[in-house]
């Protein structure tokens, strides 16, 4: 009984997500976008990702939504190292290292 629901979600979510991804790449093609659109698009990464991440940092699911010092420290370390070194891997390593260290010391 649950199988029908699982399969319908898998297929519908797969198709829907593909259409979202294909939308502009497929339709707009090599036509030029107006400069004000390009100006807005420059800020897509720094507009979307912080919004996605901020609630996960402040109210982590693992603690049932309670603010958690190790996770806040880990996120801050990832942010500072990432912005300073301009290096995603260094940012990830710093974040996870601080997370495990803080969980071990404070947990």
């Amino acid at each position: 009984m649950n199988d029908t629901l699982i399969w319908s979600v898998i297929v519908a979510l797969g198709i829907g997500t593909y259409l979202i991804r294909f939308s502009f790449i497929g339709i707009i093609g090599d036509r030029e976008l107006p400069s004000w659109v390009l100006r807005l698009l420059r800020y897509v990464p720094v507009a979307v990702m912080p919004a996605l991440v901020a609630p996960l940092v402040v109210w982590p699911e693992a603690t049932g939504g309670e603010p958690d010092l190790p996770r806040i420290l880990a996120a801050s370390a990832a942010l500072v190292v990432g912005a300073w070194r301009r290096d995603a891997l260094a940012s990830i390593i710093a974040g996870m290292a601080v997370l495990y260290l803080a969980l071990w010391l404070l947990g």
Partner: protein
Amino acid sequence: MRSTTDRSAFFSGLRACAPFILVVVPFGMLFGVLASEAGWDFVQILAMGFLVIAGASQFAALQLIGEQAPFLIILATSLAVNLRMAMYSASIAPHIGPAPLWQRALAAYMLTDQTYGVAINHYTMHPNEPWTRKVAYFFGAITAICPAWYASTLAGAVVGQAIPGEFALDFAIPITFIALFAPALRSLPHLVAAVVSIVVALNLAWMPYNSWMLVAAAVAMVAGALTEVWVERRGA
């Protein structure tokens, strides 16, 4: 690959995206583990990983299916999480737009947070590269991430319940997103956009179906663009 420079672009995309294998693997495994714990079979877990390739929405769907939510609520919520990819698609279209349809269709399939983040950083630094190199770079990034995603989803399904909670893998997700945007905080407009994004998101997090995410992103984009205009006028 058309030429040796395209081939070198392919490999530099591969190298640039390779570090994210470390992040994608726990994410894929975690999905496999949680889905198998929820009673999904191998084929279902792999089909989800193969067709959707969008971790956050997969977790949203997994959770809501577990809660026996209505089909349309599950679909709308999970797709809302993925709406940010329309903005990725729009952002990357000017760079790979001249490519043939089949190449764009394939690129769209693997337009993820990681491949997009790595590619757009490269395109921003090398805006005048020919599109063949840009496409080759993107396919290199895909080649780094794609097999790792499938394999880790499968491994997670196999490993099942063997990963204990104290590994705090839940937090690999936020760390990934931070690692993807932090290196882009290179100017005042970028900084303003990020701060506005965080403030709006935290204040609107009560809105249902992740809709706060899209509101925060839209407001932050405008804030970044307006700051850019302001900085240019002051400089002029």
